């Protein structure tokens, strides 16, 4: 079945059209929006919108823990949370923008998202309380488990 057998019904999109759809964020920061936030700002939002499910310290409650305990991935019962397991900081921003909080996904502004991301990174002791996260700084954050993965069925 080749393209010549297809009816070619796709509607062409302009760059402006595409921009309304394209929310991909890459590890190198491509796709991150403007805006900024710090852990301090993030804490206030976290307490209000997140703590009820993830615990007041991110230790987990009905939903899972967001702050890694002392155990590295080699421990007997390793803690696969942000600090110990996640390879890229941009993933936090991307995931929160799509999915959190579950009752109102997509409701957080870019500033709020940067702030919450900063809060989770700081809670995991990866950045400091005052580090400001934005489209430039976030991709530069070196995650502890950055090199903890080996690809199996596809090469990067």
């Amino acid at each position: 079945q080749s393209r010549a057998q297809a009816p070619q019904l796709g509607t062409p999109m302009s760059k402006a059209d595409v921009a309304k759809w394209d929310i991909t964020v890459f590890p190198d920061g491509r796709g991150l929006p403007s805006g900024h936030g710090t852990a301090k700002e993030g804490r206030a939002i976290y307490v209000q919108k997140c703590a009820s499910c993830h615990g007041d310290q991110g230790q987990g409650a009905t939903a899972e823990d967001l702050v890694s305990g002392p155990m590295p991935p080699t421990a007997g019962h390793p803690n696969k949370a942000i600090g110990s397991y996640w390879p890229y900081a941009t993933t936090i921003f991307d995931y929160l923008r799509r999915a959190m909080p579950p009752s109102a996904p997509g409701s957080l502004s870019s500033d709020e998202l940067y702030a919450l991301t900063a809060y989770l990174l700081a809670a995991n002791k990866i950045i400091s309380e005052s580090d400001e996260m934005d489209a430039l700084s976030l991709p530069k954050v070196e995650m502890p488990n950055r090199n903890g993965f080996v690809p199996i069925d596809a090469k990067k």
Partner: protein
Amino acid sequence: AATAEPARGDAAKPAQAEDFADPAWLHRTGGAFTSYGTPSKYEKYVVRNIGGNREPAGDGVSWTPLEDLEGIVTPSGLHFERHHNGVPDIDPKQHRLVIHGRVRRELMFTIENLLRYPMRSQFLFIECGGNSNAGWHEEPIQRSVGSFHGLVSCSEWTGVPLSILLDEAGVDEGASWVIAEGADANLLNVSLPLSKLMDDAIVGLYQNGERLRPENGYPVRLIVPGWEGITNVKWLRRLHVTDQPSMTRNETAKYTELLPSGIARMFTFVMDAKSLITSPSHGQTLEGPNVYQIRGFAWSGRGKIVKVEVSADAGKSWADALLDEPVMTRCFTRFRMPWHWSGQPAILKSRATDETGYVQPERDVLIKERGRNGYFHYNAIVSWAVDEDGAVTHVYA
């Protein structure tokens, strides 16, 4: 009719009075014609078992009751579910599929338009990467085979070969990955190698003959033959053609398998060969010594099943089971094996081999290789113990 006379089963009892009841349904007009049928009320216990971490509602799973099913088709109403934030109630008129990024023409498709494209149909299993994860537990979980391994189902999927749409968009030379996104309240996203999608992925519109069910991606789902469930993105809305993965939460924090070395396997897409005996299986009881048909099914994300062996002595000896036709690539294959149960304790196992030569591993081998913190991709041989009363339980053996 001049063959030797085998002993009659012990269960053959003389006829009872109730065997001659004159049932009421012979004497009155039966139920009405129905526009859309449903199972018998006497089968109302054959349901998906809703479970998993459902806090909040919307994030969880429901298991296919494999022990109640036969053949290779899973009825769509019993296809397993894994949702991250519930089932979106999508109006197909409002839904769009966008293909953009490293293509010559960035394109948007309506469902109406997709339905006009060339299609093909294929029978394929879909298995959640987290299926059977109780197998990693220290102690064998005591649950029905469906509530243990039921995050796998098999359907006939029909849709547009994705290569046709990618060709229409005109993929750039440098492109190597595609990020697929769903229209759920999670905007679930995963990165997939372009080569696989060009090879055999389907933009799925029909499941078992009719349009997709809402919980399985209505109005359109990405079908990635043989690859873990999460890659078969439901409610597909966007395909971003690019040169690298975007390292989403579901390909980093989840659906990766941490090894004892501290390194985790990533981009583990293919579901390796696996088999399950569904009868006899945990929770069932054999009713006395007799001939039983050991029944189950096998599947492999790498191609066709070529052999399923069955053991009734905990793996000391194996015999080849009969495979029901058709045997199709990346699809359930039913196997069957006659077994005379003497009434002594026995341990039943099944072992699948696929056309690449891959053989389903014993549990200790899998655990030696992967450790016990991988969580995903558990495909070890399953053992059921039959005790002298015929009761069947899950064991590690």
